[in-house]
């Protein structure tokens, strides 16, 4: 295709830019990995060495002893993010559909407000949220970390899914309508199956954000050790005397691993075009 043709110089430029960009993002992970392999006493030795002879995976086994609840923390992280994702989708799907297809008063205004809400980080609202959760008796439960997560992610989800739903040809829904299908039937049998790639994009985005933001909610709204997610649980690697950095890095990487694997697997759905053959090309 003509569109894909670049001169050699352009290609070098593009790859260079991508390399720099990826370097910024990935180097911290490389450093995490290297640190996790390093014996603790090497960490602070100077001059700093990138590689040493007694590097090992010891930290990956010792971390489970240093922090016995580590497995539980990893599970909590995934559970909380998973619940946030599920609940968010339940709210976002009908809302995004309404914004994409129905006409109602203040539609654009409401969308704007949703966008504005996105600009607040949870941090600004922590104290009011604390009071709300206390009144509802949700402090120190999983809900304390799930409910605020859902609330903050609904706007993002609506914006993402709405633009995807708008791309589904309107004629498909009109055809279903002419054949007697109700809105809900059409949503279930026509729109949602076609929106699967969009739903996956939204789920992934929501899951990742939920995974990242749970730390804040966990340390503010939850004191129960057994309910803590991984980022909060990592604090236990900070001892009275010293911090076992290598184990902390090992634990962080291990905690992210299952999620990474799921996303690698989902990637092929993100690129698949499910609408092939719907309408004329």
């Amino acid at each position: 295709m003509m569109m894909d043709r670049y001169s050699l110089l352009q290609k070098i430029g593009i790859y260079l830019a991508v390399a720099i960009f990826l370097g910024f993002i990935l180097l911290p992970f490389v450093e995490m990995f290297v640190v996790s392999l390093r014996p603790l006493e090497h960490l602070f030795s100077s001059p700093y060495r990138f590689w040493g002879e007694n590097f090992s995976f010891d930290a990956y086994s010792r971390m489970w002893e240093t922090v016995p609840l580590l497995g539980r923390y990893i599970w909590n992280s995934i559970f909380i993010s998973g619940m946030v994702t599920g609940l968010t989708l339940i709210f976002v799907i009908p809302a995004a559909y309404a914004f994409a297809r129905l006409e109602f008063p203040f539609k654009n205004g409401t969308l704007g407000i949703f966008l504005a809400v996105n600009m607040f980080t949870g941090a600004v609202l922590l104290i009011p949220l604390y009071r709300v959760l206390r009144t509802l008796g949700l402090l120190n439960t999983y809900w304390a970390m799930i409910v605020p997560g859902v609330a903050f992610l609904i706007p993002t989800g609506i914006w993402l899914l709405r633009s995807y739903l708008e791309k589904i040809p309107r004629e498909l829904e009109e055809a279903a309508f002419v054949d007697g299908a109700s809105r809900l039937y059409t949503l279930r049998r026509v729109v949602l199956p076609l929106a699967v790639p969009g739903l996956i994009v939204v789920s992934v985005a929501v899951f990742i954000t939920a995974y990242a933001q749970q730390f804040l909610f966990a340390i503010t709204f939850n004191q129960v050790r057994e309910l803590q997610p991984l980022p909060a649980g990592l604090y236990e690697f900070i001892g009275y005397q010293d911090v076992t950095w290598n184990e902390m890095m090992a634990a962080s990487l291990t905690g992210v691993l299952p999620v990474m694997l799921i996303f690698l697997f989902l990637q092929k759905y993100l690129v698949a075009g499910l609408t092939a053959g719907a309408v004329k090309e």
Partner: protein
Amino acid sequence: MATLDLENISKSFGSAKVLHDIDLAIRDKEFVVFVGPSGCGKSTLLRIIAGLEESTAGKIVIGGQDVSGAHPVDRGISMVFQSYALYPHLSVFENIAFPLRVQKMGADDLKARVHRAADILQLTDKLQLKPGQLSGGQRQRVAIGRSIVREPKVFLFDEPLSNLDAALRGDMRVELSQLHRELNATMVYVTHDQVEAMTMADRIVVLNGGRVEQFGTPMELYHHPATKFVAGFIGQPNMNFVPGVVAGVDAAGVAVDLDAGGRLVLPIEADGAAKGDRVEVGMRPEDIRLGEGLSLNVKVIERLGGVTLAYGALGDDTRFCAALDGVAPAREGEPLALSIDPAACHLFNSDGRVMRRKAAPALVA
């Protein structure tokens, strides 16, 4: 009985009025085609009949029952969309079965109906495929299949063939006409292709700017166009319009002095026209012969084998086309002497309304 009556249908989008008082009575089992240029409101009118769009004013009556405001299913219509609108994630079988699934029809009944539709449309061996695996013509048939399983009273088609190539379009045209005979249903068909209109329609509605220009059989429109617009729209190549002045009116008809030179005495009822009125004489390219009277400055020749099309100008600036014999001795850049039988001419007054022809070919009804 599935008659379809439109009574004073008007439609506005905001301040833009796109349909003006449309009044049509479509008979039972009739194949009616809406034609007109792009943007004239064909689709809008069809969608109003379907119940996808609400008319601003007027009534839709199907089979004697006022259905304005009723749900499409309750109107007893089904619609085939220009883009096919197939469900890409469902098999051909499920696509065709969709309207029946909505009705929660039993599995055996449903299967029988889908197979009958697939039979009619020669899709039986494609039932397990997805729409993406079909050719354009097959997709079109699936869309038609989905519209016939419900056995509606009125079928609506919005430019169903416009995405197909010319050869396939010809085939599908014949198939659709056959289908109409087999199903014995009322069909309303939208197209901007006048060949489709002429070949398939029992009667044609010519729309222009949201108004009905004329409603009649293809031959009525061809031989007795009510307006200059219809005359120019129906017929291929398009009718020539040669300006002139009324030189006199008598029992024989209307004498017209053409601006390009020459006088024609046309057997046409004067209809109030008087000496000195500006008029336009409509001449179909296929009525032009080699002869005397008109001189065409030929610019382009198209030899199609059986016919030769000569394009050029009459006099200085009247665009003109003549469809002549395949071996006509016409040459680009040279003048060509032509003639026309005055009885074959149409005459339009300055408002574009036709004046009645006295001697017109008998209509084959």
